[in-house]
């Protein structure tokens, strides 16, 4: 039974890695297309995707991805309110992408 549970956890983790790759790529695309300005809906999508990763990554063992996603979510919220964030949105999404590329290197 333990082996079955571990096997199921492993498969869930593999599917989660794929999700992280897809969503971090999507976030990169969105941020690169922003050109410094972003409509509310765009920022809402960034926050939604980032929040999802921030709230789930650590549970699957990817604490750094969770932290980077939380930072991106925080930055997007500040920009949404009209403020200036540090790091920038571009740097925040790059930090997330770097973290994702590290786990991609470990799992392939």
């Amino acid at each position: 039974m333990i082996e079955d549970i571990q096997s199921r956890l492993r498969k869930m983790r593999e599917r989660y890695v794929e999700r992280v790759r897809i969503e971090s790529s999507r976030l990169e695309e969105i941020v690169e297309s922003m050109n410094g300005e972003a409509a509310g809906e765009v920022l809402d999508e960034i926050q939604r995707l980032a929040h999802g990763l921030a709230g789930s990554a650590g549970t699957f063992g990817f604490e750094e991805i969770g932290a980077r996603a939380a930072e991106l979510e925080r930055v997007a919220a500040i920009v949404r309110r009209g403020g200036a964030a540090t790091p920038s949105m571009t740097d925040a999404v790059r930090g997330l992408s770097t973290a994702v590329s590290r786990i991609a290197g470990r799992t392939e």
Partner: protein
Amino acid sequence: MQQHDGRPFVLLVEDDPDIQELATMALEAIGGLRVRACSDGVTGLAEAEALQPDLIILDWRMPGLDGGQTLLRLKENPATRMIPVVFMTASVQPNEIDRMHAMGAVEVIAKPFDPMELPERIRQIWHRSQRPAGGTR
């Protein structure tokens, strides 16, 4: 916990599909609990009233009806107000946790959580929240 076909029954309201799947698997396969999962607060309210779970695990941040609004409505409904509710959240600022308790949650579980430890944590929370013998919902 009250028994339904020999197993205690938990309602999980969680909008993230991966967390929902992982938590359900952990509670069922590791903890031996019976779990009904749903993805939003409106469905959670209907399920809670219809199915009368022993305990509800409620995500704090969800689109639409969020966890706080869902809990308030659970407490407003005589059919569900006595069901113990546990929040699961990545928001772990002390003032937010205090707010969750003040709203009526019996416990707050922080994300990330350990799926191997979650079932025992839920059992312990349930035992602490049990009403005295002879109490009714």
